[in-house]
């Protein structure tokens, strides 16, 4: 009898026991589950606060009225919304053409040339550029040269941040275009630019658009580069019938920053409402870019 049990104990048990390695596995699994859930809490907390505190203030008049001063009631952020669109528009007008042209070179014309490798590294380094330094750069280049805070200065700062995103995503998009399609075009006697215009760009367009829209979404939410390039303004950019581009310009992001430090409830409510609008814009652009960018083949 004792003989048998000693033999049995020598054979490792095939039953799962909650000790040692198995127990450690379960504990670690619980740990990552909890970590993932904890990491998701901030998103829902932010969205909850935006909807509760921003949503209650949201009305038509916040889109059409000017920011209130000190103890004033009511008001809105119509001029800031327009300013954000104007400055993101300027930035896009600079960054998208330059970015896509550069991406054409990186992906098609000289992918492994020294110039391309250097530029690729430069673009990757630029993605890590602190956004405030883009502001410092635009301040030195545009504000000091023109002598005034302005919408174009803000636009240049945002363009610096958009450019590397556009370049790198557009390059990836063009590289995804199947080589046989390009070879077929070359075989018919297309020049390299014809291949780019008629095959690479149309085929890669959905993915290029995704990158462009992500860059736009990022630029719309940036605050730091605008603080001392566009500054802020309590007036419309269209003033008395004419467009005053070369003067301080309001933006949603700077409005949120300015109002967040104010001791007045009205301004704080407006800051939350403006945050809700800003996040809605950014999220809508994000979702649309995802739908547009779905590969079709």
């Amino acid at each position, binding site marked *: 009898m004792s003989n048998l049990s000693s033999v049995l104990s020598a054979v490792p048990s095939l039953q799962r026991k909650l000790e040692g390695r198995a127990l450690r596995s379960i504990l670690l699994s619980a740990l990552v589950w909890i970590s*993932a859930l904890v*990491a998701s809490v901030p998103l829902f907390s932010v969205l909850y606060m935006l909807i509760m505190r921003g949503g209650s203030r949201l009305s038509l008049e916040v889109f059409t009225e000017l920011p209130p001063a000190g103890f004033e009631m009511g008001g809105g952020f119509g001029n800031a919304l327009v300013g954000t669109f104007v400055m993101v528009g300027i930035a896009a007008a600079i960054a998208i053409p*330059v970015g896509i042209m*550069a991406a054409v070179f990186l992906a098609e014309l000289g992918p492994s040339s020294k110039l391309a490798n250097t530029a690729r590294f430069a673009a990757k380094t630029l993605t890590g550029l*602190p956004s405030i330094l883009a502001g410092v750069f635009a301040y030195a280049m545009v504000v000091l040269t023109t002598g005034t805070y302005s919408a174009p200065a803000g636009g240049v700062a945002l363009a610096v941040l958009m*450019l590397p995103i556009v370049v790198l995503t557009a390059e990836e998009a063009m590289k995804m275009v199947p080589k046989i399609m390009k070879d077929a075009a070359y075989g018919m006697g297309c020049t390299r630019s014809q291949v*780019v215009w008629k095959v690479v760009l149309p085929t890669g367009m959905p993915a290029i658009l995704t990158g462009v829209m992500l860059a736009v979404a990022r630029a719309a939410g*940036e*605050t730091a580069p605008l603080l001392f390039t566009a500054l802020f303004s309590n007036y419309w950019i269209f003033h008395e019938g004419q467009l005053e581009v070369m003067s301080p310009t309001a933006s949603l992001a700077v409005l949120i920053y300015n109002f967040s430090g104010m001791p007045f409830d009205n301004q704080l409510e407006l800051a939350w409402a403006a945050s809700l609008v800003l996040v809605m814009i950014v999220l809508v652009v994000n979702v649309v870019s995802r739908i547009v960018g779905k590969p079709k083949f």
Partner: protein
Amino acid sequence: MEKPFVVPAQADSVCQPPSSLEFFVDRAFRALARIGVILILALVVALVFEIGRKAIPGIQKYGIDMLIGTVWDVNQQKFGILPAIWGTLYSALIALLIGGFFGVAMAIFLTQDFLPARLAAVFRTIVELLAAIPSVVYGLWGIFVVIPAIRPLTDGLHAAFGWIPFFGTTLSGPGLLPASLVLAIMILPTIAAVSQDALRSVPMKTKQAAYGMGTTHWEAILKVMVPSAATGIFGALVLGLGRALGETMALAMLVGNSNQISLSLFSPANTLSALLALNFPEAGPNEIEVLMYAALILMFITLVVNVIGSLIMAYAQRGAR
């Protein structure tokens, strides 16, 4: 002008050589594309050159004194940025500890078969949306949610463990800990995304070999998968650190902007980016020189960290091939 290509014998062929005009357009387009690339390089050069040139007067006037000075007083013309440098590094490191842990945990969670595909897509979207929210909104949220939420905890820690330098002061509104927490949330998506790529690039066979030798799920992850992807994960952490060092708005709104060097997590502090954000809009010409100097220091720190991160990533990709 002589045609650069030979005309085919049959005129009705679909294959046509490019005409002179097409040839010219091709050349012009390629030149344009090259200009686009050169503009990127020019931008980088201009960035360094412009900020460097505007910082030269400040460097000549204050030199090394500014880097080791601790007082920032515009009226006395005293400009010391040591507290800001300290705050930049300290807040980024704490954010990296927290954001790094959750980011890598999230990457393991999403890549190592813990979830059915559909649920994994939900969590992936959550991480991407975390990255999409503008930093100024995080700042606003930090002021009204994070600070009130952690106040009881910090008061308790200070009362119980006040003799430990990290808990040496009470949290009086803005401070290093709330700023670092928000910073951690902001760098989490970067770390999670890059670590996921690293973990995915480990060949399936490697994991199957580990299972075949009788490892548990977690032994395979910790002893095989994570070490195989270690270079990529390390690169992700360095890139996250680079983001944390340069982030501005959340810090300008939450860190308290007080020029002091303290180990306490609850005391207000300052960072280079917050210093720039707060002082630039109202700065006189004299102060601008100093701020350009500070901007140059910030650029140097982030550039070094980012270049190291990019090199590690390039090394990891070469290793994976």
